[in-house]
């Protein structure tokens, strides 16, 4: 047998070990190369891990992601030249999803930007972090310092019971709302914690010094709500939540409007422009995109995966960019790009898998509703 759906990115030197490498192995993880690192794809099984996260709390090691601190005079103006978000309006402790944009408006990466006491705390995707850093160094003025915090690990604790488990260890984290962040202490160790994630569930992302991450992960997993969860379930959870995966659903050929990420283009920036690619992006906003990212429900049980072509009758009108079996939906689901004329929810299309046509229906995202702890939304 052989996998026909490789997702691995291997560096020429071979994958590197992350701070929790031995911890994952001791917990029975199956390790795979991903984004240049050895990462746990699963522990007990993707299905069980996925469902556990939706009903309780899952601990994910996302230390492959890049954690940057940007600081210096004129920081907001400088970063706003490269992303479409209203960064100037970001108060301390507030976090925003944004996009690093190429000159032509294509997406170089999607990232999280948070106003921290020392500057802007930015989390970027592991697979492109070195390109991102190079891009920032090239385009930000000399007054802006970029520090890449390679001595810190990053954990995500996700699920409806994440707050119960984490507040027992780090009192006060329950005061954060969705897309807020702050400094906390675990004993004498400083933690930077945000209430955000990549599963559609309530949860947290925890930045911690690498030398303490194993002890912290042990303590989290000693909580009855928490189990370690691999990359496999991380992918199926984010797919159900309708969240795009950079390098698959988003890439330098895709602009934010096509990517159904117009919400990341802040109101002030729409009128003022002034970010890389704003000409293409603002005209796509005004005129509508040529193609659009959509969700697809799949008839039957056969998964429709990345690369499958989409048809309306004989016409090829798009392509699947992510797809697989969705444990919570209990059916195959997919995400892909279709010509805008076919992007209305309810549109019946066909996907081609191994030479056969499968019926799919365009559907609104997400597939599983989000359960974020939003301010003003009550409990």
């Amino acid at each position: 047998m052989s996998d026909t759906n490789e997702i691995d990115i291997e560096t020429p030197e071979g994958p590197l070990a992350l701070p929790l490498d031995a911890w994952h192995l001791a917990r029975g993880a199956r390790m795979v190369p991903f984004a240049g690192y050895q990462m746990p794809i699963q522990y007990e099984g993707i299905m069980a891990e996925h469902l556990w996260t939706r009903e309780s709390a899952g601990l994910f090691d996302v230390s492959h992601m890049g954690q940057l601190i940007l600081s210096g005079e004129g920081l907001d103006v400088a970063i706003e030249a490269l992303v479409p978000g209203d960064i100037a309006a970001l108060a301390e402790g507030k976090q925003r999803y944004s996009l690093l944009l190429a000159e032509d408006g294509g997406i170089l990466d999607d990232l999280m930007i948070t106003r921290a006491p020392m500057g802007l705390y930015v989390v970027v995707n592991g697979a492109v972090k070195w390109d991102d850093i190079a891009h920032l160094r090239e385009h930000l003025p000399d007054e802006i310092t970029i520090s890449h915090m390679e001595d810190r690990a990053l954990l995500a604790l996700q699920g409806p019971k994440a707050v119960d488990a984490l507040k027992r260890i780090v009192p006060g984290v329950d005061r954060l709302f969705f897309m807020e962040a702050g400094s906390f202490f675990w004993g004498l160790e400083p933690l930077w914690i945000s209430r955000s994630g990549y599963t559609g569930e309530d949860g947290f992302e925890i930045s911690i010094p690498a030398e303490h991450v194993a002890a912290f992960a042990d303590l989290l997993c000693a909580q009855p709500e928490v189990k370690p969860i691999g990359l496999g379930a991380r992918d199926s959870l984010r797919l159900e939540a309708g969240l795009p995966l950079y390098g698959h659903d988003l890439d330098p050929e895709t602009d934010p409007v096509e990517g159904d990420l117009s919400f990341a283009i802040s109101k002030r920036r729409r009128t003022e422009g002034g970010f890389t690619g704003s000409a293409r992006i603002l005209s796509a906003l005004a005129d509508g995109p040529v193609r659009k990212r959509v969700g697809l429900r799949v008839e039957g049980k056969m998964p429709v995966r990345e690369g499958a072509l989409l048809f309306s009758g004989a016409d090829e009108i798009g392509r699947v960019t992510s797809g697989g079996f969705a444990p919570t939906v209990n059916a195959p689901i997919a995400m892909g790009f279709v010509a805008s004329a076919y992007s209305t929810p309810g549109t019946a299309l066909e996907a081609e898998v191994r030479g056969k046509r499968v019926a799919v229906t365009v559907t609104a995202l997400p597939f599983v509703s989000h359960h974020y702890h939003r301010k003003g939304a009550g409990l």
Partner: protein
Amino acid sequence: MTRYFTDEHEWIDVDGTSATVGITDYAQSQLGDIVFVETPEAGRVLSKGGDAAVVESVKAASDVYAPVSGTVTEGNPALVDDPALVNSDPEGEGWFFKLTLADPSELDGLMDAAAYEGFVATL
């Protein structure tokens, strides 16, 4: 009836010129949760080493190659509704397809249970 194994982690039960093919317990454990199996239709002629079936886990699709040449007599209908049979009983109820052997001498190079166990131990 004799059971053979391949280094592609398939098993073959042979009774005269009839054979039943499935994937091994080791294979299912590596694949994880099976969510879909595409078995070949009756009448399809398979050649040794060619595509025969597809097994899909949550994560990925994997090809299953024909361990020997022959003509398919039946795909396992139970896998249509319950692909997880491949996880729960890979070397029994979770069989993939049956075929009539074209050339029984193709079995000569395959492993027996002890040899396969030794092979898996090296992985």
